[in-house]
Structure formats: C-alpha cells, structure tokens
C-alpha cells in the first residue's frame, strides 16, 4: 500500500468513526479501563470540565432508524426528532453503557426529554445545566456559576476534586483539537476543497466521541496529507454553505453534494460551531475563561442573538466564496424555525440566495429533498 493510500484509509477510518457500526468503540474502551462516560446532546455543556473529572464526554447520536417505536410511547410525533431518536436509542438499550447524561435546556422539548430519561432509566447521574438565552455581563456571571455547579455535581458524584490545574490541562487539550479542526476548515476555502462537506461532518462528529487527545494525534498526523488532498465533487464550482442543527448524519450533506453542490462550509452545532473559538488562557481564572469561550463562539439558534449569528454566516459566505445557502431545518425543532424569518429577510437584503428545507432527523424523503436542492442549484447557476 502506498503512503497516500495508507493515509487515505486512515482518514476514511477517522471520518467513519461516528457511523453506527463504529461509534461505540471508544466508549467501550474507556469503560474497559474502569472509567466513566457521560452522554451529551448539545455544544454548550463545557466538555473540558467533564474531561478534567477523568470522564469521557461522548456526544449522543440518536438512532438513525426509520422508526422510533419505544420513544413514540412517550413523545408526540410533532416534537424535536433528534430528541425522539435519542430517546429511542436510550430505551432500546443501545446506550446502556453510559454512566450519565448532562444537558442544557435548549427548549422545552429537551427539558421533557431529560425528564423522561431521568424517570425511565434512572442512570447513576443526570444533570441539567442552566444556560442563559442572551449574552451580557450579568448572564455571563450566571453561566459561570452554572459551570461551577456542574463541577460540584461531578465532584460529589466521583468523590474527586477537579483542580484548576486539571482544568487548565484539559483546556490545552481541547484548544489543540479546536485549532486542528480549524486548520482543516481553512483547507475548505480552496477552489477545490481538501474534503467534502460530508467528510468534514464525519470528522467533527468523530472528535466528539473519541478521547480528544487521541483524535487530535490522528488528525495532526493526517494534516500534511490533507493539505495535498483534493476532495471529490461532482461540481466544485457551485459552492454552498449548509445550515442545520442536530444534523449528524453525513448522508444529508452527501445528498446536497450529489445534487451538484460543493458544501464548502457549514453552520452546524455538530460542525463548525463545536470547535469555533478558543479558550483564551492567560492571567484569567481558567473557569471564567472557559465560560467566556462558550458564550463568545458563534451561538446556536437557541441563543437569541440571531442577527449576530446571521452576521457570522455572511462573513463565512465571503471567506469561503459561497454562492448560496441551503438550510436543512429539522422538523419540529423550533429555535431554528424562529430564526428562519429574520434569516430570510437579512439574506435577501444581502442578495445571498437561500433556501430552507424541512428534514427528518433520520435520512428520509430523499427524493423530495433532492428535487428542491437541485432546483435551488439550478436557480443560483442561472438555469
């Protein structure tokens, strides 16, 4: 096997880490060492704190199956589909090895999911953090307090103190991971990006289930190869940015690319927003520096600074030379639906083509989606 072929195989292995057949590997390995694993569902829970407690923070991907028969007993059909598929995974026993769950109240749907998880599974540890809806000096103070409460909960549960040094060490590990992912995303600015949008999503979702140091070591080893690599696109000239939340199945991004687009940037909580922005280590108290990073980085639609979020999208449109935006809005996920109206107005004012399409959490209705995406691409290409 040539060097490039070997590197490509390693890259594809890393990209496929969050596929159903692979994603339990690191969880099991961590547990085999007698250590704990906590499941997370959003990007606001400060993973560094959990890692500093010697616990693996492991992002929960819901069941990708067509149906959710167990969850349907407890959740209405018209509710966040990610939450339903997470509950399906929990109730079907797929996630029995998790020691606990930590989440934030994204919306009422997440709160009810947490209630049901807590009531039905009674895991050793469940905790729901406070998270403000807006960013100000006052709310930052409340958020920092919430992080310290999480620290206390973890210390009480494990019986071990989380020192400032342990946190600082984890901040360095996470900053390294974020920096490496940022370098990979820089390679997406090229005329022919180093990797496809589907591959990029695979990479970021891998980071969230692996021990972060192990992930970073592998990604760092692959970077020289990535710098030489050209992603395989049907048409690399039609550059689009895709927006979504709770989108963790690369097949959806692949669908957009199969229609003739090159997905050169994403606005995903499962993608760019996970690693954008570093913890500024300096003279600051590491706990406060950590809290600031989680408020400073581009927010998800759950935070109500929508104009800033759209401003970030417009910046990315320029930086990544994007010709149009495809939003794949998950059905019944309300925060993104609320943002839609202002997004439509502001992007139209900026003359940026934009289409917002509904999707299920699991891969479904692909024919309908393809027709809409293709029509949008025909529109921006001018027929």
């Amino acid at each position: 096997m040539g060097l490039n072929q070997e590197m490509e195989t390693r890259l594809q292995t890393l990209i496929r880490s969050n596929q159903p057949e692979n994603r339990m590997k690191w969880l099991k390995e961590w547990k085999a060492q007698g250590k704990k694993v906590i499941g997370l569902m959003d990007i606001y829970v400060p993973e560094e704190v959990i890692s500093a407690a010697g616990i693996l923070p492991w992002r929960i991907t819901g069941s990708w199956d067509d149906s959710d028969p167990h969850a349907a007993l407890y959740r209405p059909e018209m509710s966040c589909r990610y939450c339903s598929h997470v509950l399906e995974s929990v109730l079907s026993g797929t996630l029995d090895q998790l020691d606990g769950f930590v989440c934030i109240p994204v919306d009422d749907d997440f709160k009810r999911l947490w209630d049901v998880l807590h009531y039905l599974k009674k895991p050793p540890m469940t905790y729901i953090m406070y998270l403000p809806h807006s960013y100000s000096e006052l709310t930052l103070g409340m958020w920092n307090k919430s992080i310290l409460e999480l620290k206390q909960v973890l210390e009480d549960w494990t019986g071990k103190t989380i020192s400032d040094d342990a946190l600082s060490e984890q901040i360095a590990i996470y900053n390294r991971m974020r920096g490496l992912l940022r370098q990979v995303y820089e390679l997406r600015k090229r005329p022919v990006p180093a990797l496809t949008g589907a591959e990029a999503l695979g990479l970021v979702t891998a980071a969230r289930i692996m021990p972060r140091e192990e992930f970073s070591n592998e990604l760092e080893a692959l970077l020289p190869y990535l710098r030489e690599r050209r992603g395989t696109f049907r048409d690399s000239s039609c550059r689009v940015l895709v927006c979504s939340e709770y989108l963790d199945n690369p097949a959806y991004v692949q669908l957009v690319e199969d229609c003739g687009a090159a997905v050169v940037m994403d606005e995903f909580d499962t993608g760019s927003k996970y690693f954008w922005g570093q913890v500024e280590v300096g003279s600051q108290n590491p706990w406060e520096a950590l809290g600031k990073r989680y408020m400073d980085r581009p927010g998800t639609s759950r935070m109500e600074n929508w104009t800033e979020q759209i401003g970030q999208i417009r910046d990315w449109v320029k930086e990544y030379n994007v010709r149009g935006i495809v939003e794949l809005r998950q059905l019944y996920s309300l925060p993104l639906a609320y943002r839609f109206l202002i997004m439509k107005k502001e992007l139209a004012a900026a003359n940026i083509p934009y289409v917002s399409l509904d999707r299920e959490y699991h891969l479904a209705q692909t024919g309908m989606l393809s027709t809409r995406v293709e029509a949008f691409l025909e529109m921006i290409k001018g027929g």
Partner: protein
Amino acid sequence: MLVAGIDIGSLSAKAVLMDGEELLGGKVIYTGPDPVESAEQVLRQVLAPQHLRREDIRYIVATGYGRVNVPFAQSTVTEISCHARGNHYHFPGVRTILDMGGQDCKAIRSDENGRLTNFVMNDKCAAGTGRHLERVASTLGLKLDEIGDLSLSYTGEPCLISSTCAVFAQTSIVGFLRAGYPINNILAGAIDAVVDRVLALMDAVGVEEELCISGGVAKNSGVVRRVEERLGMKARIAPEPQIVGAIGAALFARDRARR
C-alpha cells in the same frame, strides 16, 4: 435540430418533440409501475406520428420525479425549472406559476427569460394535488373531468372541508354525503380546501402578474376559477397544461445541444 423533453410524473408520463422553436408534438400517458417503460412508451408514441426514431433526436432532457429513471436522456433538469421555462415559452410575460401535479404542488417565480427565481413546493400531504382530486371524484362517484364544473354550480354555502390533510378531507366528504348534503356543495367545499392550500404556497413566494397555471389540475375549472377570484387576476393556461414541463425540458435540451 430535433430535441425532446420527457416528464415522468407520479400519475402521468409526458413527452414532447421540438425542432427549434416549433413544437412538433406532445403525448401524455398514465405512468405505469415501471418509469423506464413509461418513458420508452411515451417517447415511442410521440415519435410515431412524425415517422421518426429515437436516433433522430439530438438531445433529450428528462424531468419530473422519475427523471433519473430515463436511461436514454442525456441530462436532467428539475420539474420546477422546466415549468418556469415551459410556461415562458407560451407566455413570455409570466412571472408567477402555479403547477399542480399528481403528487405535489409548486408555486414558482420566474424572470423575463423564463429562469427560476424562487419556488415553494408542497408534497407533505396529498391535499392540493391531482391525486387528491381523483379520490374526491371517486368518493362521490364522479369522473375527474366532471368535478370542476359541478363545484361551480351550487346553491347555498359550500360544505366546510379540512384543508390540512387529504385523509381528513375524505372523512369529511363521506360524513357530508351521509348527512345528505348536495354533491355540488360538497365538491365546492373540497375544492375550496384545495385552493386554500395552494394560495398559502403562492403567498410564500409572492404573486406578480402574469400568472400561469400548469399541470393536470389546470384542467379543473373549479380550481382555476377560484384561484383567479381569490387572487383577483386572470390565469393563463397553455393549450395543453400537462405537457408544459416537458416543453421546458425540451427547451433545455435545445440549449444543451447547442453548447
């Protein structure tokens, strides 16, 4: 230069032949279970009267939900772009298009060149589609081509029928039948409900004159009259509204053959 457009819809397969700007012929057949066979059959039927063979065609573009299943097409274009282009062929002043097909409904905006500028599609529910109108006709024991005119000649108030779901609409229709309401009033209510849905779609893209209606449902006078009344503008309808998408595909074929 001979080109063809083939539109494989959920209910019908359409084919047209064009030579330059001239429309040589068009054909509509029911789509069978095999879209490949439907495509071959409809093309054979449009070629036969012209005494032409498939080899005589320079370029073929396929459109419609079955566009990827036409093995002899050189390329594909979505039905959304094709309806914009096909309506522009008949009516160059068109800016808003309502295409009501067998399984979906589209509100489309286009520019002075017939290029797509905006669109919204509804296909999460059969309400507002040709398939739904077929079911309405069948439930009432009528032929599809009868229900439009009958829905316009009622006395009193139309029956109030759900516009949110095709299944609920059918249930309401059966209920009104059992309660002895006149068929015309039931039909008026059923078609009002369809029009409620399509107007919501049109509102999402904005309506600007000229307005065209295409697709099989454009043959339903009850739908067309209500859309016109509610929007306060006359709708233009191609001589054969079912083949407008195929005409658009043929025009794309002509462009691509010239490249």
